[in-house]
């Protein structure tokens, strides 16, 4: 958002004007930005605030003498939040929290390694490169629900996975194997995404740098570690950040592949979904808000610790233009 305001300001500054002054510049910027801000307020701001408000209310669920639900929403303050951390629901929450974190750590780590590998292959010049590139991208093009069904078929008791292993593993039953199944399917599907973004990064790396390193006698591994990796780091970090935010919200893949209400693969979004399905929208909004906070925290830490500069490019170019 602010980046846009900067570049807009830059654009206005470039316009030849007799005596603009900083105030006029700002007013112009605000004017130019107002449609964007309005749309953002409508499609992002309002739903977030409505969700927060919803999480403070509970729908009447008591029954009167005739067995009818007593209608009406009631303001319950933070009850929806505190009840998440009590009794059975606390177990379910921490289980889902652990699952979500487990999926995030394992899948993103695997995807990064595989994705970078894919990008390196796609970057090589060889005969049939177009075919390889296209085929690597196929999993990413398949809708998640469909790939969930495909993997469900592969992982069923008499499916391809067990035939290849020569050993019967009950992948789709609630249990540890189900976690592994979800990780495999998720990595299969989303590694190409990291591959694609890293490939874009690789294409920005100037050839001379590699040639210079070669002349200096650096081995292939050294060239990768000291030249390629630092240069693709910005692209890689953005890719990893996007994947993390995405996998923290994971719902459809475990829901289709294993099913809902399965302890071993239940994620935080699935808990929110379950509450909403059973008409407790306040409680569902509370889960979603907690997840929102968790995602924001992870993203913030990631950006702080690793310095993923999502919008740095734009800022640098803005600075350059000013000079």
């Amino acid at each position, binding site marked *: *958002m*602010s980046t846009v305001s900067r570049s807009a300001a830059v654009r206005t500054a470039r316009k030849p004007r007799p005596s603009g002054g900083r105030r006029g510049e700002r007013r112009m910027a605000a004017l130019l930005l107002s449609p964007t801000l309005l749309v953002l307020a409508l*499609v*992002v701001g309002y*739903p*977030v605030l*409505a*969700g927060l408000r*919803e999480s403070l*209310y509970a*729908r*009447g*669920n*008591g*029954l009167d003498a*005739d*067995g*009818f*639900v007593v*209608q*009406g*929403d009631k303001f319950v303050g933070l009850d929806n939040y505190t009840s998440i951390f009590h009794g*059975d629901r606390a177990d379910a929450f921490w289980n889902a929290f652990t699952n979500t974190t487990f999926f995030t750590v394992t899948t993103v780590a695997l995807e990064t390694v595989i994705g970078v590998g894919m990008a390196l292959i796609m970057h090589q010049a060889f005969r049939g490169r177009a075919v390889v590139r296209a085929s690597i991208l196929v999993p990413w093009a398949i809708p998640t629900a469909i790939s969930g069904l495909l993997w469900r078929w592969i992982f*069923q*008791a*008499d499916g391809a996975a067990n035939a290849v292993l020569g050993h*019967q593993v*009950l*992948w*789709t*039953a*609630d249990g540890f194997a189900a976690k592994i199944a979800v990780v495999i399917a998720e990595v299969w599907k989303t590694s190409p995404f990291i591959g694609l973004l890293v490939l874009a990064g690789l294409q920005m790396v100037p050839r001379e740098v590699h040639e210079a390193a070669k002349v200096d006698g650096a081995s292939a591994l050294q060239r990768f570690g000291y030249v390629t990796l630092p240069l693709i780091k910005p692209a890689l970090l953005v890719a990893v*950040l996007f994947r993390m*935010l995405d996998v923290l919200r994971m719902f459809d893949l475990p829901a289709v592949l294993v*099913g809902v*209400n*399965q*302890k071993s693969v239940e994620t935080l*979004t699935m808990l*929110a979904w*379950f509450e909403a*399905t*059973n*008409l407790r*929208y*306040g409680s*569902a*909004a509370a889960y*979603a*808000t907690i997840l*929102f906070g968790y*995602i*924001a925290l992870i*993203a*913030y830490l990631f*950006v*702080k610790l690793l310095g993923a500069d*999502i*919008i740095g490019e734009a*800022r640098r170019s803005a600075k350059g233009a000013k000079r």
Partner: protein
Amino acid sequence: MRRTITAGAVTCLALAALTACGGGGDGKAKAPSGALDGRGPITFVTGKDRSGNLQKQIDGWNSAHPKEQVRVVELPDEPNDQRQQMIQNAQTKSDAYGVLNLDVVWTAEFAANRWLTPLPKDQIDLSKMLPATVTTGEYREKLYAVPSTSDAGMLYYRKDLLDKAGISAAPKTYAEMWADCDKVKALPEGKGVDCYFTEVNKTESLTISAVEAVAAQGGSLLDASGKPAVNTPQVKAGIQFLADARKDHMPKEAVTLDTEGGRRYFQGGKLLFQRQWPYQYALAGKSDGSSKVAGKFAVAPLPGPNGPGVANLGGHNLAISAFAKNKATAFDFIKYLTGEQAQRANLLATSQAPTVASLYDDPALAKQFPYLPVLKQAITTAKPRPVVVKYGDVTAAIQGSVYDAVNGRTSVDQAVTDLQGKLTTLTAAQ
């Protein structure tokens, strides 16, 4: 500046988690009129009909009632999605949905939330219907929905293998069933054939298996007043049966098999006894090579511990949305679709179990659907799943506890104690 940019970007990226969670009820109830008045066009809201028979029946109605046309609103295949859409419609108090095709377990929830119009019992003849099916349309003794189709589990068995083993009749008790398995296993043909299967994957099917196993022991998860009564010897014996059956008599992959998975297993000739719905009869009997057991199987009532077991009721009921227009037309349309003639046509076209008792005794139908006498007996003695307003929570709790016990992760005693606690909380408001 930098910090705000970063925080802003982070917030924007994380927003997607929240944006899906707006909405909700506004709580202000517009008192819907209870009277069945008004005539004119209505809608019929139902899951997909693949047989084409529904459209035929609607066309029949429409040509006879040019001023009271019925339009079909098709909902997704998944029962849960159908329920979601119907609830959303009710919460916005929209009159877009008229007659609703409800799963039998939704009646209590929809009725208690005043989403359905109470139906006058004296204006519809329910005496021809099987009484067990009529109960599924009632909530607190008032009628809210009229049964249009029913369903109940039966025991499918491999008649050819039993004959070879010299067994003349299907087993009536669990002990007989296990003994028959041993005899068949001793045959060369019995190699690679698993003994028994009822669904134990963690879905609604597990609730059904549990309710059947418990009912067979003479127990029930809720007592007569609707209070949870899980910690009883009957319930424990029922869950113990499922646990033992899974361990000793079911295929190893039983926990991964859903209804269709079970059907494929049986049709692959790998199963001697199977608890399954009637729809499998026609598919398993197909002689086009898709079924290896065509002509080799038969059906019988479910076995129990000391005699015949108890099936669980499935099926669908027709109800009128509380917010619908033209309720008089809607009520007539329900009478038309649940009438004997329409149900006969439906049975012939879709092989869905009717709710009209006389159809089961029709010799022409019994010839085409040889399982009808068994099914009638199953439905007559069937027990419903728990009738509770918060059915979604209750069935999830049942599935969780029973699944752990059946897979030996917790003891049966522990499971029933847990379940009693959960169900007590969930039904506390009732």
